[in-house]
């Protein structure tokens, strides 16, 4: 651990806080996105869907599909676990996460509007389901 890297330490602190309020202890500090995933996001090859999962924009390569499948399997497992402790259904939890994930997209990244159409995020708020917080 590099104590001099204050930005990194702040990130760890926020992660720990989030873990604490979520009722989970001893969660490893938040990891960063895989470079391939970060690149696919930035290039608009993948985007956030309202159902809480990652989608491929257009026709992706088999490598991209495998990466997206892997991320979505991990997301689903996470949603299932968290939904159980929150007394909610998997779909409810995933949908809520989808609302937030779309809200957190950065300008230039892709997201799916309620109509099903892929949109590029701009500086203005994204088009989301009317039930989103």
């Amino acid at each position, binding site marked *: 651990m590099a104590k001099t890297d204050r930005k990194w330490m702040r990130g760890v602190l*926020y*992660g720990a806080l*989030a*873990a604490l*309020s*979520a009722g*989970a202890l001893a*969660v490893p500090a*938040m*990891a*960063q*996105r*895989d470079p391939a995933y970060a690149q696919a996001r930035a290039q608009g090859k993948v985007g956030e869907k*309202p*159902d809480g999962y990652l989608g491929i924009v257009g026709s992706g390569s088999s490598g991209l599909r495998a990466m997206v499948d892997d*991320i979505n399997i*991990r*997301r689903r497992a*996470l*949603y299932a676990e*968290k939904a159980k402790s*929150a007394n*909610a259904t998997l*779909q*409810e*939890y995933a*949908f*809520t*996460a989808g*609302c*937030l*994930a779309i809200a*957190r997209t950065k300008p230039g990244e892709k997201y799916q509007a309620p109509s099903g159409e892929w949109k590029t995020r701009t500086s203005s708020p994204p088009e989301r*389901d009317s*039930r*989103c*917080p």
Partner: protein
Amino acid sequence: MMPVKVRDRLHRNNIAGLPFGRALMAKGLLMLGVVSLSGCISVNAPDKPIVIELNINIKQEVIYRLAKDAGNTIDANADIF
């Protein structure tokens, strides 16, 4: 006793109008029979398939309740979000 139908026809044809009340009663009975026969409710199957949008069942209040928790989950798992 004449059958109701025949008697009714007789009264209808007799314009001089003998017992109008009885003729009316017979007509009423006939009408009742017809109405009760044709009064069935017919239910037709829709020609289009019934599509159930699962997301519709998710209530806004549930989403608001889960929002904080889900936000924390995303923060704590930044590698897959």
